């Protein structure tokens, strides 16, 4: 039997997490709400309260209404939430022990049979809950213990249970009930949700009432914040930030998110089939220029945002002279018109981006200029259907945005996008050494081992250069004086947390 909680490294992580959780919860008794009620403005809103429908589970968690058994912490680690521990058994199944004294918003204790009922229903109804390890089956062993079996064996069940598809809920004759710090009072689909503190969540008396209002347009969101109608404006467009300069009552805080910006390099494209050319392109891009163009973000260090424990050490090199030397070595000589040639062929590439992520379109001229200096002629294209173009392989370079660790584990991204023959290996890259590393990562249990393997995989990606990791973007959150101490983190996965609206 593999006892996860007894392993030193995991135990250390769990202990750290428990201390963090305690630190988060403990001050609640000595703190107070900053206001009786606050209003949050954001561009997305749960369309209903059934977490098994579509992506509603994600929305309910980010609103502070629902919780999973595990979650991703501020430091990018998977930590217990409604669960207290998880142990893998010799037969591959897992035993999950529930945390003490957790309740649904009507006071019903969170028990193993209720958790099993809700998560089994989700697994049956929502295909997304079957994405990572097939169908999970939950069985109550006793009031506080669950046995979880998966169709496909997995060493990372806590990470899977931290995915957005697995909030715990209590089915009732009416709307489901949840365990989060806030309980739904009323919901107007597409418009607003009125919430009150969950009376059965520790520290309820210190929390304010919260209204979440959906404002789909970023400019309007900024103006709603400027008008004082909302206390928190989540993800303000960069061009609106100057409105709040010198405003004592309102501030804007900026935080890095896990949606990495990157550029695929099609290894099946004739010019890019040579790894020297791909490495040259990676070396020729000044990531600081991209950050300046987007007016937000930090240079990427690898596949993951720097906050994750498995992020690569940075910075990534920028060396145009070395890049030029690599192209010379690859046989691409500078032509009279400033474009390199080889065997009568000019070094011309097509760079794609998509408007759904405007920053990527902003990057196109910056990348084109950098590669022009290197002697590579780049034409730019924009598509509304990035997945179609990427999957077709009809591209040379493709600017891309991707959340690379949505459930706090590096395995999904590294295997899905880079393993030989994987469905989203858009670069068409293949490396036996890399595949072996991912196979090892797939079965590794110890978190330290997983971190080491993930970093090793990133080194192999850097060597093979099927992709150039560019920028970790940042988002901007407007805060009224009532919420001045609020620290956003976790991209858009945990906007409203237990410490929301409470003075520290």
């Amino acid at each position, binding site marked *: 039997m593999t006892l996860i909680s007894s392993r030193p490294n995991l135990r250390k992580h769990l202990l750290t997490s428990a201390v963090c959780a305690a630190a988060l919860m403990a001050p609640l008794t000595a703190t107070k709400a900053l206001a009786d009620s606050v209003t949050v403005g954001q561009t997305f809103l749960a*369309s209903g309260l059934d977490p098994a429908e*579509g992506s509603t589970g994600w929305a309910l968690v980010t609103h502070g209404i629902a919780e999973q058994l595990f979650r991703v912490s501020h430091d990018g680690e998977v930590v217990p939430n409604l669960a207290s521990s998880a142990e893998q058994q010799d037969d591959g199944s897992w035993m999950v022990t529930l945390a003490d004294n957790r309740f649904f918003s009507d006071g019903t204790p969170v028990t193993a049979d209720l958790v099993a009922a809700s998560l089994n229903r989700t697994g049956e109804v929502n*295909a997304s809950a079957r994405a990572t390890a097939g169908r999970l089956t939950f069985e109550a062993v006793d009031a506080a213990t669950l046995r979880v079996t998966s169709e496909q064996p997995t060493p990372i069940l806590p990470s899977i249970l931290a995915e957005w598809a697995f909030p715990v809920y209590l089915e009732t004759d009416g709307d489901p009930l949840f365990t989060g710090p806030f309980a739904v009072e009323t919901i107007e689909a*597409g418009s607003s949700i009125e919430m009150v503190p969950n009376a059965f969540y520790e520290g309820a008396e210190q929390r304010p009432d919260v209204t979440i209002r959906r404002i*789909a347009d970023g400019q309007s969101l900024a103006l709603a914040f400027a008008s004082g*109608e909302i206390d928190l404006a989540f993800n303000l467009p960069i061009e609106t930030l100057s409105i709040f300069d010198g405003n004592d009552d309102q501030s804007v805080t900026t935080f890095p998110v896990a949606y990495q910006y990157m550029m695929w390099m099609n290894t099946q494209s004739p010019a890019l089939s040579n790894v020297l050319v791909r490495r040259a392109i990676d070396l020729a891009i000044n990531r600081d220029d991209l950050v300046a163009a987007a007016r937000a973000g930090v240079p990427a260090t690898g596949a993951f945002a720097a906050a994750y424990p498995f992020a690569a050490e940075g910075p990534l090199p920028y060396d145009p002279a070395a890049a030029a030397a690599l192209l010379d070595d690859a046989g691409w000589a500078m032509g009279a018109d400033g474009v390199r040639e080889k065997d009568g062929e000019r070094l011309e590439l097509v760079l794609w981006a998509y408007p759904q992520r405007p920053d990527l379109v902003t990057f196109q001229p910056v990348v084109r200029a950098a590669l022009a200096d290197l002697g590579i002629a780049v034409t730019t294209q924009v598509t509304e259907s990035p*997945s*179609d173009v990427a999957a077709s392989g009809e591209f040379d370079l493709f600017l891309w945005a991707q959340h690379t660790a949505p459930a706090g584990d590096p395995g999904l991204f590294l295997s*899905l996008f880079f393993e030989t023959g994987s469905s989203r290996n858009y670069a068409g890259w293949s490396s036996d050494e890399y595949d072996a590393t991912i196979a090892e990562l797939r079965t590794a249990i110890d978190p330290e081992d997983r971190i080491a393997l993930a970093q090793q995989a990133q080194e192999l990606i850097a060597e093979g250069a099927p992709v150039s990791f560019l920028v970790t973007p940042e988002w901007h959150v407007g805060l009224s004086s009532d919420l001045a101490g609020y620290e956003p983190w976790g991209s858009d996965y945990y906007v409203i947390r237990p410490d929301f609206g409470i003075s520290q």
Partner: protein
Amino acid sequence: MATRFVGMTLVSWLAAVAVSFLLIRLVPGDPVDVFINHVNIRATDELIAAYREQWGLDRSLFVQFGLWLRGFFTLDWGTSFATGGAVTGELIARLGWSAAIGVGGIAVALLIGSALGFFAAAKPGGLADIGSRAFAVAGQALPAFAVGVVALWVLAAEFRWIQPFAGGPVERLFLPIGLVAFFSIGSVSRLVRAGFIETAGAPYLRTALAKGLPYRLALWRHGRQRAAIGLLAGIAPDLAWIVGGTAVAEIVFGVPGLSERVIEAVAHRDYPILQAYVALVALWIIIGLQLCTLFRRMLDPRLEATGQA
């Protein structure tokens, strides 16, 4: 006449929804792919197949259209790909907001535009005439989105006279209705003015004046029918603007109407939402056009006799 009205409406609507059904599916981007990318899950073949089956995309287009059509008439408009919620309930809840903005906007435009047009015709070159022309030029030249943002900035952010996001329904509808009306007042007033100006030069008005009627009263009594006929003929294109203007107003002012939801649905290739929206908009425009024709024929029976619309 009633049978022909219903028949024409139904045939036109069916043609519109059939073409749109095809066009929506021709837009590049597979909904399953878009959804999986959006929610960051592993795109296995089994998962993709499961979603295609669940969303009915594994069936032929003909079968999909037949099922959708049956569902539309039985008020089962399918399930949103993005949210998993029932489309019928979601769109009907939003329909009230959109109808309030659209109908409210056109009603205000008709009220103000008609008055402005009448007074512009009563005194060509006067203040009302200048105002009417200014509205018409502004309606053509200004971008609706920018006007909405400026109104928001001035009235809500700078002076804080109104709470368009957090206020009650009336407060939330004030600016959206104003925006839709603003861009229709000009065209309404010019159409009304043209009708009354035609009457102003007619011999029967001179006869009425000779009988001692005050000029404005005579113009109103003898010109209103002609102005109404002209307005009904000319206002038809504005029915499409009402839809577009309502969409802009909903997005700028954060109103949870139909169009505001559709923007998101386009990004997600959410076919059930898009299809139901197109069906409702087509119904609105076709019924609007048919009613305009009907009213014109009621006001001017000669049109019925000659078969003109």
